[in-house]
């Protein structure tokens, strides 16, 4: 649906992006599952008066997986929102330089902070085999928590791909 400004092709970056998109589009089916789980929950509760905390939790599990893996997917489709007030009138070269500096100075440190701290976060959860705080909720909390490091690693990979693309284009001197 979103008409994304097509980025010029760079083979290696294209390959990485395709890989990330294949993962993203597979995970995206979580949203279909989410629709079905919600319907199931409503039917069970209203029809049979047996709403389940586990189903309620499964809903945000599915949503969270979709959101987190979406980050890298949206990066490869160049969909993250920019204030283009001036940006849209920059020359291609300026845009490449901004992109490279932005990724190196702003994005990568942020990703690194989240990634490295999330490792401990997941390890703790794994160590005590964390369960939902609701007695009849879902177990294996470390599994859903581990989407943080995995999805942020993918996001970092997507950023690397973008770096390769912009650097190549900058060297090539494309207009």
């Amino acid at each position, binding site marked *: 649906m979103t008409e994304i400004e097509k980025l010029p092709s760079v083979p290696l970056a294209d390959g990485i992006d395709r890989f990330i998109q294949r993962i993203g589009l597979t995970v995206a089916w979580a949203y279909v599952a989410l629709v079905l789980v919600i319907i199931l929950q409503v039917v069970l509760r209203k029809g049979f008066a*047996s*709403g389940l905390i586990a189903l309620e939790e499964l809903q945000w599990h599915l949503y969270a997986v979709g959101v987190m893996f979406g980050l890298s997917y949206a990066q490869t489709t160049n969909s993250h929102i920019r204030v283009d007030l001036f940006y849209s009138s920059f020359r291609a070269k300026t845009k490449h330089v901004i992109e490279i500096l932005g990724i190196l100075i702003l994005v990568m440190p942020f990703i690194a902070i989240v990634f490295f701290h999330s490792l401990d976060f997941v390890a*703790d959860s794994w160590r005590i085999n964390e369960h939902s705080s*609701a007695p*009849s909720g879902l177990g294996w*909390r470390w599994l859903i928590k581990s989407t943080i490091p995995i999805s942020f690693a993918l996001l970092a990979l997507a950023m690397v791909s973008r770096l390769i693309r912009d650097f190549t284009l900058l060297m090539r001197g494309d207009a």
Partner: protein
Amino acid sequence: ADKLLLKTPIAFGTHLPALGTPIAWVADQLKLVSDGKVKMKVYEPGKLVSPPEILDAVSSGKVNSGYSTAGYWQGKMPAAALFSAVPFGPEAGEYMAWLYYGNGMSLYQEMYDTAGYNVKVMPCAIISPETSGWFSKPIEKPEDLKGLNMRFFGLGASVMEKLGVGTVQLPGGEIFGALEKGAIDATEFSQPAIDQRLGLHKIVKYNYFPGWHQQATVFELLINKDTWGKMSKGQQALVETTCKASMTNAIAEGEAMQFEVMEKAAENGVEIRYWNQTMLDTFKSKWDEVVAEKTAADPFFNKVWTDLSTFRKGYDLWEANAFLPRAQK
């Protein structure tokens, strides 16, 4: 070090009487009694970190202390529920007796230590009973509960499920809307003075007591163990004593503010009801089933439960003889 700043994210806003006001009081007192050398900076829920993340934040040293209730950690340590509120459990006096002069405190600390959390724990407030819930119709017999959808938090939810209640654990903010529209039929939340703030009395009229699921609730102050180790003996005593004083302050505040709210609710057409004996017996027998499952599933839960039960059995002799019977109404 001479000076100490405890950065303390909290689980309940300081505007909430009895749930949140005690820690604000503690912060004030710490500064006063230490002549400004020990300070506590309180962060409202979610400002730094949201309530369920407080334990992780303190243990990993992202903050050096935190104020919460152990019930939040029962997904990490099943026994934690027993240090927060126990269905059909002790009232405040008995609870404190077990914690301070029974094995309560050492088991409490042991729980965090064995689970690998780098925290020092101390009770820092205790409050009186919660209400048992808000219903749109009278509940006279167990069958009246069957098929209801109810918001219920914690160990009590397992009891309700055994009675054929569909339970959900909606966050505080969604309760009013869900109840008003009928997506749930009943809810429990907290004490009358807190429930009143949610406006529950505006939609459902049957408010049941006693809160068998939460006769007393303990709130804890967690301090990162490295921070604790670096504190002087005097500083440690200062914090521990202030927390003990806070127990007195919190229960006094909570006891003082409920009846006025209940009177006003009654004026607004709320029916204040007391569970009949059949219902109480039913809840109790289902709770016994839940306990049997929990003790079988988790050894440490079993250890704490056995210790608490032994203490309570001893206390029974005293309790049955020492206190006047309570008049109902």
